C-alpha cells in the first residue's frame, strides 16, 4: 500500500503509517491511508498528481501545518505530531522554507524586509544575516529591487523573492507548492532552475508539488499521487539521478 521513497540510513523526512481523512458533509474523504515514505538529505523530490490528489496536503503534513489523522511524520528525527502547536511553529520557523503558487509575500513589507523577516523571527538578524540576504537577492537578480514593494514586481520576480525568502534562514527542508503554477512557461522554467540551483547550493532538501513535467526533470526522484498511494515515475527523473 505504500511506496518507499528511500531506505538509506538517516533520512531527513520519515513518514510512517500516515493517514489523513477529511470530513466532507456526511462522508469521510480519505486522502492518504497508511502511507510510508522517507526523503534523504539534500534530495530533490517532485510530487505530481492531478488537482485534489493530495499534493498540498502532503506538504502541509510534512511541514506540521496540518496534523495526520493517524501515523507520524518525522523531520530530522523530530516527530512533528508529538510537538505542541507552538513547538511545531518554532520548528518550522527554524528548519523549513516554503514557496507557494501565489507567492504569499507580505505586501506591506519591501522585498528586502520580506527576506529579513524569517531571520528576525529566528533571532538571526545580524550583519551576517543581512549580508546573506543581499547575497540571495543578487542570486535571484533582484538586488536593485530591494526597496520595492511586492505589488511593483512581476509574477516571476515575486516568485524569485519567495524562493530567496524560503532559503534565507538556511532551512534543512524546502517545500514548494506549485511554484510555477502562476507563471508563464519561460519564467516558470527559469524559476525552477533557480530553485534547483539555490537548493543545491544551500545543501537543502526540496520537496516540490507540481503539475509540470519540466519540474520532474530536475528531480532526483519523481512520484505521482494516485488515489491514496505514491507511485514512483523513474522515467521522468533527472538523468543520472
Amino acid at each position, binding site marked *: 500500500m505504500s511506496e518507499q521513497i528511500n531506505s538509506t540510513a538517516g533520512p531527513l523526512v520519515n513518514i510512517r503509517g500516515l493517514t489523513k481523512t477529511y470530513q466532507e458533509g456526511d462522508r469521510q474523504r480519505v486522502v492518504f491511508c497508511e502511507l510510508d515514505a522517507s526523503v534523504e538529505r539534500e534530495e530533490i523530490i517532485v510530487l505530481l498528481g492531478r488537482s485534489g490528489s493530495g499534493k498540498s496536503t502532503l506538504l*502541509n503534513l510534512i*511541514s506540521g*501545518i*496540518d496534523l495526520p489523522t493517524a501515523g507520524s511524520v518525522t523531520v530530522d528525527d523530530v516527530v512533528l505530531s508529538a510537538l505542541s*502547536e*507552538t513547538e511545531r*511553529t*518554532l520548528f*518550522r*520557523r*527554524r528548519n523549513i522554507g*516554503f514557496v*507557494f503558487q501565489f507567492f*504569499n*509575500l*507580505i*505586501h*506591506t*513589507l519591501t522585498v528586502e*524586509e520580506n527576506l*529579513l*523577516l*524569517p531571520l*528576525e*523571527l*529566528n533571532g538571526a538578524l545580524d550583519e551576517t544575516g543581512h549580508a546573506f540576504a543581499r547575497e540571495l537577492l543578487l542570486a535571484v537578480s533582484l538586488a536593485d529591487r530591494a526597496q520595492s514593494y511586492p*505589488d511593483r514586481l512581476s*509574477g516571476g520576480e*515575486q516568485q524569485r523573492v519567495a524562493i530567496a*525568502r524560503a532559503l534565507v534562514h538556511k532551512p534543512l527542508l524546502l517545500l514548494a507548492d506549485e511554484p510555477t503554477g502562476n507563471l508563464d512557461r519561460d519564467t516558470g522554467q527559469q524559476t525552477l532552475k533557480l530553485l534547483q540551483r539555490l537548493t543545491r547550493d544551500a545543501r537543502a532538501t526540496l520537496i516540490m508539488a507540481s503539475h509540470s513535467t519540466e519540474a520532474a526533470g530536475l528531480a532526483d526522484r519523481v512520484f505521482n499521487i494516485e488515489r491514496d498511494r505514491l507511485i514512483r515515475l523513474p522515467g521522468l527523473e533527472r538523468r543520472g539521478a
Partner: protein
Amino acid sequence: MILDRASLRYLLRHPWLVGLSVLGVALGVAVAVAVDLANESARRAFQLSVETLSGRFTHQIVGGPNGLPESVYRRLRVDAGVRSSRPVVEGYARAPQFPGETFQLIGVDLFADAEFRSDFGGLGTRAAVTRLLTQPATGVLARHSARRLGLNAGDTLMLSVGGQTHSVTIVDFIDAADPVSRQALDAVVLTDIATAQELLGMRGRLNRIDLIISGDNSALLERVRAVLPAGTDIVRAEQRSLALDQMTRAFRVNLTALSLLALLVGTFLIYNIMTFSVIQRRALIGSLRVLGVTRRQIFVRIVTEALVIGLLGTALGVALGIMLGNGLVERVVRTINDLYFVLSVREVTLVPWSLLRGTALGLGATVAAALLPAWEATRAPVSAVLRRSTTEARARQLAPRAAVAGLATVTLGTMLLALPSRSLLLAYSGLFALIIGAALLIPWATMAVMRGLQGVMGAGLGVPGRLAVRGVVATLSRTGVAVSALAVAVSASVGVGIMIESFRHSFVDWLTATLRADIYVAAPVIHTSPSAATLDAGLVARLAAVRGVAAISTGRRVRLDAPAGTTQLFVLDTTQQNFQSYQFKRGDADSIWKLWQGTDAVIVSEPYAYHHIVDMGDTIQLRTDDGERAFTVVGVYTEYGADEGRVTMSRRTYDRHWSDRAITFIRIYARAGTDVAELLARLRGAAAGHEIRIRSHASLREASIEVFDRTFAITAVLRLLATIVAFIGVLSALMALQLERARELAILRATGLTPRQLWQLVTAETGLMGFCAGLFAIPLGIGMALALILVINRRSFGWTLQVSVEPMILVQGLLLALIAALLAGLYPAFKMTRTPPALALREE
C-alpha cells in the same frame, strides 16, 4: 521589528478604515469624558461650595420647617457651654436688577465664625466689619462678582426674597484666595446675622447651628441633646452633604450609563472593523504562520494594532470630550438647578481622574473589542487560514449555532432584568446580555432575510439584485458582523429615543391630570429653601374675594432634615373634589381621601414609596415640633415632579404637629363661565405690591414641560451623539467592505457587468445590509427601551412610566441605517466604475 512595520504599513495603507475607526473610538470616548467631566465639575462645585461657604464642622442642629428659635443657640452656649458653635442663617435671593442672577445670602456671626472657616479671613477692612455689625442692610460681595456685575462700594444691591424686595448696601469686597474660593464665593452675599434674619424673614430664628465636636465626645453630645427642645435634632455633617450628593446620584449614574452606551456602540464598531481587518488578512496571517510566526505573536500584533487605533482615538476623544464637556456642564448644572439645588458652575473643571478614566475606557474598550478577532485569527489551523472558502463555509455553518447561543443570551438577559431586585448593576448586566445576544442572532437572521428577499431583488434589479443578495450571504463572515454591529449602534438611538418619548408622554399625561386649577399663585421659589418662600396670609383672603374665584386651595412646601435623611413634605388644604387630581397606584381617590383626612395619615409619591420601601398601610416617621411621630401611608400616587419623592399630608394634620402656619402656594378655581385671562388680570391687581408669580393653567403647564424638555435636553444630546457614532459606523463598515472587494468587482466588470449594473450591485448590497441593520435595530431598540424604562429608570428614580413607542422613532432608526448604508456604497461604486477593470485585477 519588521512585523511591526508590516502592521504599521497596513494601517497606513487603509486610511479610511483607520480614520473611521479612530473617529468611532474618539466619539465614544468624547461622550464618556464629557459627561464624566460635567458630572464631576458639578459634584466638585457642590462639594467645594459646601466646604468653602460652610467651613468645617462636625455636627449640625436642625429644626422644623421654620428652622430653630434663636434661643436654642443661647442655651447651647450658656447652659451647655458649647463654645465651638455658630448660628447659621442662609437663604437664596433673586436680584431684580440682574435678571437671571440668584444670590446665596449668608448671615455670619463674625465672632463665632472665625473658628469655622478660614476663607472669610480677609473679610474686608476693620471699618467694613464695624459697618456690617452696626448698620442694618449692609453686605459684602466677592470682588470678582462685584466686578462682573459692575457694583462698587456704596452701591445698592436689590434682593428679592419670598416676594419681598430689600435693598442691601455693599460696604466692601472679599478677595478670593484661589480659584476654588473664587468659584464658591461667586454669587454670595455676606451680611451680619441680624441683617440676614431680617432679609430672609427669619427674625429670631436660625436655619441651623453648626458645631465642632472633636472625636467622639459623647459626653458633650449628651449635654447638647439635653438643651435641645422638641422638634430639633442633631445630625452629623457628612450626612447632610451625603444626602445632597445622593439626591443627584441617580441622575448622574444615568447620564454616565447613557454615555457608556455611546462607548458600547463605539466598541461594537471597533469590533466590526478589527474583525474585518483580520478576515481580510487571513491569507497574510496564514503566510506568516507558515513562516513560523506563532499564534501568540499574531495575537499580540492584532491587539497592538487595536491599541494604536485606541490610542489615537482616545487622545482625540479626550480632547473632544473636554470641549464637549464645556457645553454639557451648563446643561447638567441647569438640570440640577431645575430639579435639585442651586449650583453655580461657569466652566468645566479638568478633573485628572475623569481624563484618566476616559483614557482607560477608550483603550480598554478598543482592546476588548479586538480580543475576539485576534483570538479568532490565531485559532484557525494554518491550512484553513490559507483558504478563504473555508472561512465563509464555516461562518454560514456557525450562524445557526450562534443564533441559538444568542437566543439563550437574550433569555438570560431578560431573566436578569426581570429578577425582583433593586440592583442597577444587575439591570445593566441584563441589558448588556440582551445586546450581546441580539448581536449573535443577527447573522443568522440576515441569512433568513436574504433568502426571503432573493426573489424580490432579482425581479427588481435583475442580475445585480440577485448578485447583491448572494454577496451578502456568501461573505457572511464579514457582512454578518457588520450588520450586527450596525444594528446595535442604531438600536441605541432607537432605545433612548423611545425612552425619552415615553418619559415625556407619561409626564405630560400626569401633568394634564394633576393641573386642575385655573390659576396658580406662588412666591418665587428657589429650590434649596422652599420653606422660606411663603405668601402673605392676608393675600389669601384678598385673592379669594376677587370676582370670578369659585374656590381656592392652599399648600405649603417644607423640607424636613433628620438624621435619617431629608423629606420633602407637601401640605395641602384642599377639597375632596380637587383631591381627585391625584392618580393613585391602588385604591380610589374617594376612599383614600377619607383616610387621608383622618388622624396622622399621609399619601406618598411613587418614588418616595420605592426609595423608602413603604406601601399602603405602612407607617413612616417624621420629626414634628413635638419630636418624632408615626404617620400611616394611606395611598401611593403617581408623580414625576421630584425624583427623591414626596410626602403629602392634609393641612389639618400638619397644623396638629407643626406650629408653622405659612403658605407657599395658592390654587385658584374659576367660577364657571369666567374669562380666565380677565380673572388673571384682576388677581394681579389684587396682589399688587407683592412679588409673586401668578400663572394660568396653560402657562404653568407650558413652563413645566419646558423644564422637562430642558432636563432631557442632555439625554437628547447623548442620543444624538450615539446616533452620530452609529451613522459613522454604518458608513465606515460598509464602505470598507465594498472598497476591499475591488478585485471581485473588477472580475464582474471584466465578465460583462456594465458600470450602471455595478452601481446597482454595490448600492443594493450596502442597502440590503443597512436595511437589515435598521430592521433588526427596531426590536432590539424596543427591548433596550423596555429595559431602560421598566427596570433601569424604576430602580434609579422609582418611577413607573407608560411605554410609548412613537412609530416615527422606529422609522428614523431604519432611515438612519438605510441612508448611511446607501451613502456608504456611493464612493466605492464611483471608484470602481472609474477604474479600468484591468488595473483593479492586478495582483495587489
